[in-house]
């Protein structure tokens, strides 16, 4: 074990960077960066056009305050701690301040950089709000608020009870929002006075709940969640073995598994159904439906591309949902159960395709409807029909593609 804990954390961060480097290369080759750059350019061009014609009743201050408050409240911490540290590092708890120093510094720097980037983008809009304080003058105040929020987030991590932690987090978010709003609308000295009073109030309240000396379990859980998020992201571009993930119950969807007929040939069908619903695959599909439906409806309402923008957005999200649902084929590929239990191997591929197609269909319908219904109501029947039909046609097309994929993988 590394005697210097600060060095140990640095070594772990370095090891992590080395471990993900190949996946970053795969990501760079995937075309995703090009997509991001194009999306950013399109967004920037839209934003520039918006700046020239900001509607007079647009809530500049409220929007800016919410965005900045969200970035200030968010305080991720990359500790690289693992459960085994309960054995090896716990006896050195009194020295952990050294270990955490660089984690905190890294969190503050990356969080501040993100916040300042958002501030830079928001600044032209802020300039039009008639605020009493200049754009540059607010930067130090925002940086101090970020440091206070990071300190507050650490206090919350130390809280022994989840309910108290959530309440304090809610209080911190509300006070931060109020402080940012004050900074945007009030003269600087008065706004700073308010922010200081809010910080004092928060500090006083946070002294009340019971606290851990060092929140080992919370940091283990947080680090595991962060790793899972990275893995999920990289898994979209490369074949990455899944680490343990916490299942979600999702009873509103899991009841479907109860409808599967009890027979040997349906064994994999039940397993894949529950896996898709309860793991990150299901979570991602739900998010895709929510965001895709919103995007489709908003694009349709904008009337862009002669009313076809909504349909195009729906198709893109339905395509993404199909690809996501297809990842269920990777589940349990290496499960030892396949060797120990008499699972009907012949039906595995068919079950994966059926589950993926059913999930894709369940996504395609709301996506098509979200873009198609408003179009139909506005009398744009061609894009309305195309939105719905396009989403539905993708389902069998993606299922065929998935079957070919699995055939190829089986042949390899």
């Amino acid at each position: 074990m590394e005697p210097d804990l600060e060095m140990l954390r640095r070594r772990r961060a370095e090891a992590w960077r080395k471990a993900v480097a190949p996946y970053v290369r795969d990501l760079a080759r995937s075309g995703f960066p090009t997509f991001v750059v194009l999306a950013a350019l399109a967004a920037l061009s839209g934003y520039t056009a918006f700046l020239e014609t900001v509607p007079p009743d647009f809530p500049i201050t409220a929007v800016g305050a919410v965005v900045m408050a969200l970035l200030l409240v968010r305080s991720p911490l990359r500790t690289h701690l693992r459960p085994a540290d309960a054995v090896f590092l716990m006896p050195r708890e009194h020295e952990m301040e050294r270990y955490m120093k660089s984690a905190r510094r890294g969190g503050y720097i990356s969080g501040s950089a993100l916040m300042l980037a958002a501030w830079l983008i928001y600044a032209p809009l802020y300039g039009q709000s008639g605020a009493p304080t200049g754009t540059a003058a607010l930067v130090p105040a925002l940086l101090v608020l970020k440091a206070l929020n990071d300190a507050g987030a650490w206090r919350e991590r130390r809280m022994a009870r989840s309910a108290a932690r959530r309440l304090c987090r809610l209080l911190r978010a509300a006070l931060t929002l109020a402080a940012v709003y004050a900074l945007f609308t009030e003269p600087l000295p008065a706004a700073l006075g308010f922010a200081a009073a809010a910080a004092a109030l928060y500090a006083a309240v946070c002294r009340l709940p019971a606290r851990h000396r060092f929140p080992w379990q919370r940091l283990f859980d947080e680090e595991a969640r962060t790793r899972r998020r990275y893995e999920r992201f990289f898994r979209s571009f490369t074949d990455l073995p899944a680490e343990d993930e916490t299942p979600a119950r999702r009873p509103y969807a899991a009841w479907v598994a109860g409808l599967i007929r009890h027979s040997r040939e349906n064994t994999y069908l039940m397993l894949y159904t529950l896996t898709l619903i309860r793991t990150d695959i299901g979570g991602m599909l739900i998010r895709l439906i929510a965001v895709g439906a919103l995007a489709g409806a908003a694009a349709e309402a904008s009337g862009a591309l002669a009313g076809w923008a909504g349909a195009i957005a729906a198709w893109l999200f339905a395509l993404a949902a199909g690809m996501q649902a297809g990842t269920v084929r990777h589940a349990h590929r290496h499960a030892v159960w396949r060797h120990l239990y008499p699972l009907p191997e012949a039906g595995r591929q068919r079950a994966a395709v059926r589950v993926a197609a059913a999930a894709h269909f369940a996504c395609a319908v709301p996506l098509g409807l979200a873009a198609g219904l408003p179009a139909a109501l506005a009398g744009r029947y061609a894009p309305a029909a195309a939105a719905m039909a396009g989403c539905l046609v993708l389902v069998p097309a993606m299922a065929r593609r998935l079957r070919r994929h699995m055939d190829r993988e089986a042949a390899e």
Partner: protein
Amino acid sequence: MEPLVEVEELSGGYSPRRPVLHGLSFSVAPGEMVGLLGLNGAGKSTTIRHLLGLMKPFAGSVRIGGVTLEEDAERYRRSFAYVPETPLLFDELTVQEHLRLTAMAYGIDESTYAGRAERLLGEFRMTDKRSAFAAHLSKGMRQKVMIMNALLAAPPLYVIDEPFLGLDPLAVRSLLERLNEEKRSGSAILMSSHILSTLEAYCDRYLLLHDGRLIVSGTLEALRESAGMPGATLEQLFFRFIVPERDAYGT
């Protein structure tokens, strides 16, 4: 009676240059509980892995239910249920769903499954945990799920590796009672454990492995005769057979 497990001249391990098992031969008959004994590293788990078909023998053969894995994989796998030392469960499935999945895999009809599952959940005091995710269970409870899965399948052969680790005393008793019941109904049980007193109380025969070799096997009486220790306990016999060899190595 036709043996259910037939192992003949089995040599195996991870590398042919350094085999772990050297020419093992033994059999397990229906209605028989056989204890697999040995020190850590003796080859117990490797033997079990060969029985399960997770490892391929370098030489010799393993037959379960009269067939090798290559001859009829489905019949081979449906002939046994395995309880591993470390529970292997799907985190996203509940206890009840694991039981249902097992029943489906073994082709057990729904009404039989429902009856057996209720009985097992009650016996192992898991009724109130039926809707809990495997990910949220303690080690002992996860082990109970594996045991319930095996008993639910009611196969001709049970292969059980260190089943008592993490189990509470009531669960140990439930397991042993159920295994006795299964034995009486004609199932064969091959159980590996370091808890010699329990093996002595429940097993009919013993296989003692040392350094990948079967150094002695038979009933308790046969082991006593072979050691020249009438009335000795299994633990005394174990040390009698193992310790002289260790001394011979100068350890």
